[in-house]
């Protein structure tokens, strides 16, 4: 009886064991919660590592890594470390959508960003909407602001082509000439330029006197050049891809050493290409739009040097490690800025995990002013939450001595246009 009672009495070992077990059980939720809050924020990066966008992809990855380092050094997001999962989309819309599914369903990412090429963005956005994944694109396309995407797709890191072209027109008309001949690729990218520039130059007192649409399969442009009217004052070109080198060479041969119209182009054609390459001498004295000045300018902002050092770019826009490796400097800032917007959005939303993705989108939609700083080294911007599109500065540079020298900076207002959509009225 006694022994049975003793047996029921807790021994020291039992008590200690029980206490230890209780303590462990009590500590579990705390440890779990701690692990939850300390778990990294996972961001998916849709990377054009292969395919037609590979030159951009290489630099976008470096830029994202550099921004990530800075974000983590500054304490991450909401005190949590951040990691980026890079996945090659082959610059292909089918693979782009698959990569989005991988980020959402397998990796359980908190948000996805980084895509540049329009067809990848347009092919991926429906899946982002269905998977309810914040999808922050860096594509310049007008498809976001035009209302063709969905509530989950935003473009807060770079202006769209309509805004860029519209901002160029007044300066072209007032400085270079009023009679413009456009030479553009005969597909969506070129059509966007045509559709935006023709009314913009008219509003600025100029006119497009000829539109020369080049079929995408052309490798030689000689037969199109005689169509440039003799009274052309400005040639506006937006050729892209490897053919641009041939285009410039043949344009140079067409005009020879005689008088030529002023020439204005978009640097998209020559991203990752050394402007002083043999064959590009004809570009001397011509003008380019730049999203961000490739060559370090005398009046560069206070954060320019820090940004260049972080992304590994020298004063000429080439890699610090290899001077032949020219960056896609005019565009890649969008990746940097988008990561900082994600940080700001998550912190504003008190983001805890994927259940808060909607709050993140709403927090970004609520953003307006994005002042110049290390988070926005390209320049101050204004975000339009209704259209999911940011507006900002544009730069015009002139090729002088084989370098791009900035001659004009537009204001954000130059590129603004009436809203064409209101995503905030759409459901999630």
């Amino acid at each position, binding site marked *: 009886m006694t022994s049975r009672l003793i047996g029921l009495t807790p021994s020291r070992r039992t008590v200690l064991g029980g206490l230890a077990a209780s303590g462990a059980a009590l500590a579990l939720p705390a440890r779990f919660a701690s692990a939850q809050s300390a778990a990294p924020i996972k961001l998916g990066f849709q990377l054009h590592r292969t395919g037609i966008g590979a030159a951009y992809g290489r630099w976008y990855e470096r830029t994202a890594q550099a921004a990530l380092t800075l974000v983590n050094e500054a304490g991450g997001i909401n005190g949590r470390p951040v990691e980026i999962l890079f996945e090659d989309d082959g610059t292909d*819309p089918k*693979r782009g959508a*698959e990569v989005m599914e991988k980020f959402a*369903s397998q990796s359980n990412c908190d948000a996805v960003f980084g895509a540049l090429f329009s067809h990848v963005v347009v092919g991926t956005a429906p*899946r982002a*909407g269905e998977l309810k994944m914040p999808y922050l694109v860096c594509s310049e396309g007008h498809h976001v602001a035009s209302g063709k995407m969905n509530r989950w797709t935003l473009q807060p890191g770079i202006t769209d082509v309509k805004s860029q072209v519209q901002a160029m027109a007044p300066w072209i008309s007032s400085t270079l000439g009023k009679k413009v001949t456009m030479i553009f690729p*005969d597909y*969506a990218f070129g059509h966007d330029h045509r559709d935006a520039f023709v009314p913009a130059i008219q509003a600025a007192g100029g006119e497009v006197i000829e539109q020369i649409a080049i079929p*995408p399969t052309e490798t030689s442009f000689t037969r199109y050049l005689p169509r440039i009217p003799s009274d052309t004052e400005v040639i506006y070109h937006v050729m892209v891809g490897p053919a641009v080198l041939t285009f410039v060479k043949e344009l140079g041969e067409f005009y020879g050493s005689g008088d030529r119209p002023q020439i204005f182009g978009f640097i998209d054609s020559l991203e990752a290409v050394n402007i002083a390459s043999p064959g590009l001498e004809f570009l001397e004295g011509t003008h380019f739009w730049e999203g961000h000045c490739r060559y370090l300018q005398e009046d560069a902002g206070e954060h320019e040097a820090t940004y260049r050092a972080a992304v590994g770019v020298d004063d000429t826009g080439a890699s610090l490690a290899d001077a032949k490796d020219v960056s896609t400097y005019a565009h890649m800032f969008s990746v940097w800025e988008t990561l900082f917007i994600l940080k700001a959005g998550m912190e504003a939303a008190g983001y805890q995990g994927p259940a808060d993705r909607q709050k993140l989108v709403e927090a970004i939609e609520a953003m307006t002013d994005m002042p110049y700083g290390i988070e926005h080294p390209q320049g101050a911007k204004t975000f339009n939450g209704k259209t999911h599109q940011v507006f900002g500065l544009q730069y015009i540079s002139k090729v002088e001595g084989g370098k791009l020298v900035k001659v004009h900076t537009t204001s954000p207002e130059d590129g603004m246009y009436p809203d064409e959509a209101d995503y905030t009225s759409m459901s999630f």
Partner: protein
Amino acid sequence: MTGTATKVWALHLGVLAALLAAQFVLPAYHAGNLARIMVLAVYAMGFNIAFGYTGLLSLGHALFFGAGLYGMGMLVALAGWGAGAALVAGIAAGGAMALAVGLLALRTAGVSFMIVTLMFAQAGYLTILYYTPYTRGEEGIVIDRAARVLLGFDLSQDIIRYFAAFALFAAALLVKLALVRSPFGRVMVAMRENEERSRMLGYDPFRIKLAALVVSGIYAGAAGAAYGLLFGYVGASFASIQYSILPLLYVLLGGAGTVLGPFLGAVLMFYLIDLASGITTAHLLVVGVALLVLVLFAPKGILGALRDRGLKWLP
């Protein structure tokens, strides 16, 4: 039913049953992948009817896939058609395009046929770019979510999408199985093996090959139209040369002239790319090496090799 027939039906119905069950047991990511793979496998099955069974090596099947994709997509986006009618139109567009191309291209054979079909497909791709004001060219268009409702089912929902893809795949598989086991299917194989002897036996090779190509085009068109509806995107890249090569790779990997080969090839190729891309940036090299190994050691594809080594009943 003979023993062979029992095995054949058991295998194929077993595969379908496994796919039906897969939705309930696979993680969301892999279930989503499988939905996409089933649609692409329908495309590859169509290619296999032309190439694997009839011996028509086309390098222009993206034209038929694109016809289905755009036949459906343009009607939904520009004319406001419902998903069901547009799907039927897309399937018809694939078949009609194959008929038109076949009437001209089947005047050639062998390498010439490859080149002619390639050129037709390239012309189709450039036509899509040419009409950019309507098609948005290489950028493509989004099929509005509200328009992706078929018979009351919202195709943008994961489960619905899976079962819609499964229904298409199952129908395509069973029709193909019946086709290749039918007298017409045997004549198709006869065309592949010895066209002159078939002609001597009284068959008209042109008609037989044209019919096979049209069936192949219907499959490709169905896959294209379904892809656009299920995944909400219609773009010119799907009509590019890359998408003519894709079903060829699936079929070569899985086994040309086998009913299940295209599906097996599609599954393996998808996951080869998916897994390799997670390990190395040179994932396309991995795919290339895998194909080289296959050509060297199993030139008839996986199921073709199995058929040679014991499973002679495999259709």
